[in-house]
């Protein structure tokens, strides 16, 4: 391979690092992503000058073109809310590609040295897990299958059994490379990927996607070792390492250990508790009352949550905020880091309704403000304002930082019922004397409040 190609690879690797660096800072995120794309372009051009054979050149070019077009169309057409599952799908196909490449290397007798053979087998296993696991996460998020944790009878034991069988087959394959065994291994790994993701609750899926993303990174790194390609090693390892960090950061932001996410413990609990509805008195009100409270306040904070996304009420919320601002009310949005079902969910949602970025206040920034706020309007949020996170050690969200909504003078909740949120626990704040509830779908309620406000 010529030195120039290797230099191009090195430049691509540097661009990938800069991409990750950029993506970690709000200011440079978009440029970072473009740098990454540039790196990919450099590498893809370079590979054709690396003295690879000229067999199949036309099909190769066609395949690249078709893949690119499919990728572009899928990414452009997808609705904002469906992005997580698209990322999952992309991740899966990447893992699949890595696995296939190693299969091909294996068929070519790529296992001349033991380390290379180990790397080949590793890629096949991890790539296949990532592939099938990602497909399941896609199906869950796309609601093509239930997003509830799927509990197979004796599921844990089956999973462990398949895991053991996979390891055995992998070791055996390293010892005696045989094609039929490779196929068995492939099937086992695919099956394991499915079992691995099935018990995860739909809302935990972002964490799992991130983990599978790290997996794919590692399998790409291993396939780089097999192909003696430094760029694949560096890029794959970067993704593997940063994906691991990211997964643990995500789990931390939701205030619970990774293990419980993976084994569905948390989600299972949520399902159980979700039915509990006590008969304690609450104060509910109509849209007119809420409109009056808001209209005559001097400072209002809006707290959006998952329900806003469900009701697709972002534009209506913005309309309400605009009306209030016109009346001279100070209005801010309080964005909890894990409100909704994916990190940045609220930012994306409100950006869709063109809410100016300056009005979105992060948790640390807004928390001191609540005590001087007249009315907090909580739209379809629950866990992120639940004081149990501060006080109740047994609550699954205990320790998660929350928005200090209970410090405000008055709190209004827009929700459909007394049902709890994602974590499945009662919210004491709903029963607080200063709390008012407006039952109903968030979009309906907001529309009514807006109408009432216009006549107030």
């Amino acid at each position, binding site marked *: 391979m010529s030195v120039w190609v290797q230099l191009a690879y090195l430049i691509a690797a540097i661009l990938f690092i800069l991409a990750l660096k950029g993506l970690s800072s*709000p200011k440079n995120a978009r440029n970072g992503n473009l740098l990454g794309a540039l790196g990919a372009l450099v590498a893809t051009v370079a590979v054709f000058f690396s003295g690879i054979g000229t067999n199949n050149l036309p099909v190769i070019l066609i395949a690249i073109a078709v893949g690119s077009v499919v990728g572009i169309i899928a990414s452009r057409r997808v609705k904002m809310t469906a992005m997580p599952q698209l990322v999952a799908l992309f991740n899966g196909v990447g893992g699949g590609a890595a696995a296939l490449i190693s299969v091909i290397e294996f068929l070519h007798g790529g296992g001349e040295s033991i380390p290379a053979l180990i790397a080949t087998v590793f890629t096949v296993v991890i790539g296949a897990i990532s592939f099938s696991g990602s497909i399941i996460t896609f199906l869950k998020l796309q609601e093509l299958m239930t997003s509830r944790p799927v509990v197979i009878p004796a599921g844990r034991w089956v999973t462990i059994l398949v895991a053991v069988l996979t390891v055995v087959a992998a070791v055996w394959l390293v010892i005696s490379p045989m094609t039929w065994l490779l196929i068995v291994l492939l099937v086992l790994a695919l099956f394991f990927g499915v079992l691995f993701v099935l018990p995860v609750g739909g809302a935990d899926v972002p964490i799992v996607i991130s983990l599978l993303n790290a997996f794919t990174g590692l399998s790409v790194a291993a396939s780089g070792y097999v192909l003696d390609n430094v760029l694949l090693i560096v890029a794959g390892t970067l993704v593997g390492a940063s994906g691991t960090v990211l997964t643990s950061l995500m789990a931390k932001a939701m205030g619970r250990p990774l293990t419980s996410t993976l084994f569905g413990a948390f989600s299972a609990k949520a399902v159980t508790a979700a039915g509990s509805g006590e008969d304690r008195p609450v104060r509910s009100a109509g849209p007119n009352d809420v409109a009056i409270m808001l209209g005559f306040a001097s400072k209002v904070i809006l707290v959006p949550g998952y329900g806003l996304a469900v009701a697709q009420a972002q534009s209506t919320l913005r309309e309400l905020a605009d009306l209030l601002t016109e009346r001279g009310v100070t209005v801010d949005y309080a964005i909890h*880091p894990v409100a909704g079902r994916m990190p940045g969910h609220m930012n994306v949602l409100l950006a869709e309704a063109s809410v100016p970025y300056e009005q979105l206040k992060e948790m640390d920034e807004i928390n001191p403000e609540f005590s001087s706020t007249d009315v907090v309007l909580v739209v379809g949020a629950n866990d992120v304002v639940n004081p149990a996170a501060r006080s109740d050690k047994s609550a699954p969200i205990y320790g998660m930082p929350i928005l200090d909504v209970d410090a405000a003078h008055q709190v209004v909740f827009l929700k459909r019922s007394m049902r709890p949120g994602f974590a499945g626990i009662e919210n004491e704040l709903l029963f607080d004397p200063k709390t008012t509830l407006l039952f109903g779908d968030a979009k309906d309620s907001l529309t009514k409040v807006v109408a009432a406000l216009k006549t107030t």
Partner: protein
Amino acid sequence: MSPEIGLLTIFILSIFVGFEVVSKVSTVLHTPLMSGANAIHGIVLIGGIIVTAQSESVGVTILGVIAILLGAINLVGGFVVTDRMLEMFKPRAKTPAKEDSR
């Protein structure tokens, strides 16, 4: 330096870079960062190109073409979807300033 050790060194340094570079990311960027990282591993595409270009049997070529297809979808789609996400995140002057002062 033996080539093996060289690759190992590169591997380990890359781990450190990967760890350090994202460890300061703010929660808001978790999803785009995940998506961007996801796009980066689509570079496995070039692996697909290499094996397919060397392939001499039809079976292998078919597998290789599938790998290229999947890799290209991952790579190109990944960057495009990340860009679309980030369109939503307009830069906010305050956050970086805060970081600087630490």
